């Protein structure tokens, strides 16, 4: 892509946007109690919460890719009727307050829920207050980000490649695997990153549906929220840890994965 000088009318709003987005982060950094950093970081539970956050966000992203990419294909390519309604329905979690999402998950998957009560009766498994519930809550909130991104990529992709593959005898599944998927890989990568970041920061649905217990369901955002109740300094340090780890992960991925995709 040709690099251009930024048009003047874009410069001021762009600069304002940067200030607006970066200033709160700067505030966090300025107010971090650097001298207490060591003690606060080694406090019991911090590593545990961080590990749980990373694992559950990654699992939520994996589930979202497995289920969300096919859904995006249906939304972008299938000729099924009612796609507009379907699209509106699956993006509901984007506008739903996450706490409401958590209650809704209870009503379906809780032990008194429509599916959950049946599950508890037949198998004895109850989902709420488990790490599984964390992954479910995060997936519910984060998957739409991936679906929207991938759908956008599919719509922008040139269908003539797929037509060519079909003409050359590839069946529809092969075409999807060998042509469509590589074509939209950057979109899937970007969507996954968005999805992972959203899952990592998820608070409302998680604390509602999965509850809060150190080691099983207390992710970093929950730990930050509760630390804020007692010790705001500790909350700042915890936020910083989450921030550093997520930014580092995204940069690493960008080099290894997105970088290649974006260059393609």
């Amino acid at each position: 892509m040709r690099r251009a000088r930024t048009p003047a009318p874009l410069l001021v709003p762009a600069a304002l946007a940067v200030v607006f987005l970066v200033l709160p982060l700067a505030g966090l950094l300025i107010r971090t109690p650097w001298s207490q950093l060591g003690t606060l970081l080694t406090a019991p539970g911090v590593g545990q919460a961080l590990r749980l956050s990373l694992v559950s966000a990654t699992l939520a992203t994996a589930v979202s890719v497995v289920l969300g990419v096919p859904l995006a294909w249906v939304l972008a390519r299938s000729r099924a009727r009612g796609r507009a309604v379907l699209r509106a329905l699956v993006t509901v979690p984007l506008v739903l307050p996450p706490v409401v999402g958590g209650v809704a998950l209870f009503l379906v998957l809780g032990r008194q829920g429509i599916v959950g009560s049946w599950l508890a009766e037949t198998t004895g498994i109850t989902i709420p207050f488990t790490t599984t519930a964390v992954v479910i809550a995060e997936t519910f909130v984060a998957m739409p980000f991936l679906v929207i991104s991938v759908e956008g990529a599919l719509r922008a992709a040139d269908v003539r490649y797929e037509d060519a593959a079909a003409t050359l005898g590839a069946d529809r599944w092969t075409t999807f695997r060998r042509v469509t998927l590589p074509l939209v890989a950057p979109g899937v990568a970007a969507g996954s990153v968005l999805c992972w970041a959203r899952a990592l920061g998820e608070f409302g649905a998680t604390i509602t549906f999965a509850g809060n217990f150190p080691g099983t369901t207390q992710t970093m955002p929950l730990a930050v929220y509760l630390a804020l109740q007692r010790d705001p300094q500790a909350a700042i340090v915890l936020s910083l840890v989450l921030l550093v780890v997520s930014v580092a992960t995204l940069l690493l991925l960008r080099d290894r994965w997105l970088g290649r995709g974006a260059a393609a």
Partner: protein
Amino acid sequence: MVAVLAVVALGAAGCGGGDDAAASTAGASGSGPSGTLTVFAAASLTDVFTDLGQQLEGDHDGLTVQFNFAGSSALATQLTQGAPADVFASANGTQMSVVTGTDLADGDPTVFTSNVLRIAVPAGNPAGVTGLADFARDELALAVCAPEVPCGAAGEDVFAAAGVTPRPDTQEEDVRAALTKVELGEVDAALVYATDVAAAGDRVEGISFPEAEGVVNDYPLCTLAAAPNPEAARAFVDLVLSEEGQQALEDAGFRAP
């Protein structure tokens, strides 16, 4: 005349206590406090304070009472970060001292009511919970408040007093969240306040236990030094401390201070 009385009441009483001088201003409709009154109050006060706020609005034309109900510690944090408010009512002394410690309170806080813990179970008590000891049963789904919030701190004290090691499935972020889980039937029991059980109606049953008497939670309130509407703040505090206000608190399951 009314304004003068109110000013006198403010100067004399500060946050200190029920003063009958200001109470007399509350009677006169259409005069006295007006504008917007902002009250930051502990989540457990939601129902009583909402009613008292409507009553105050009815007594004074042109007065709007708005509430910020949340966990006391979250409110204390918001106040120390400069959130504008006229009255702060905390569910314990610790969070009040966060506010008084930073000189945000106008005078000394007044303890206006108190609350004890109670076990909340879903209607019909499906798990047959009888007392605190049931919180050690691993097979039950149990909720307590997180130790960071007042009801959780009080819970730790009663468990220590009872010699019970609780095995909760979740440590909720505030007492209403714990109660919600009982109402939804998702936990077999939760440790909440007596008032929460009273407010929940038919879906929740309360079980009292002897150890609760050892951990009585005092609720202090104060007007704030930077209150945008000190006159209305004073009127609200007086209403809470009045016989009427105290009766409303008692009806909701609170105890006299």
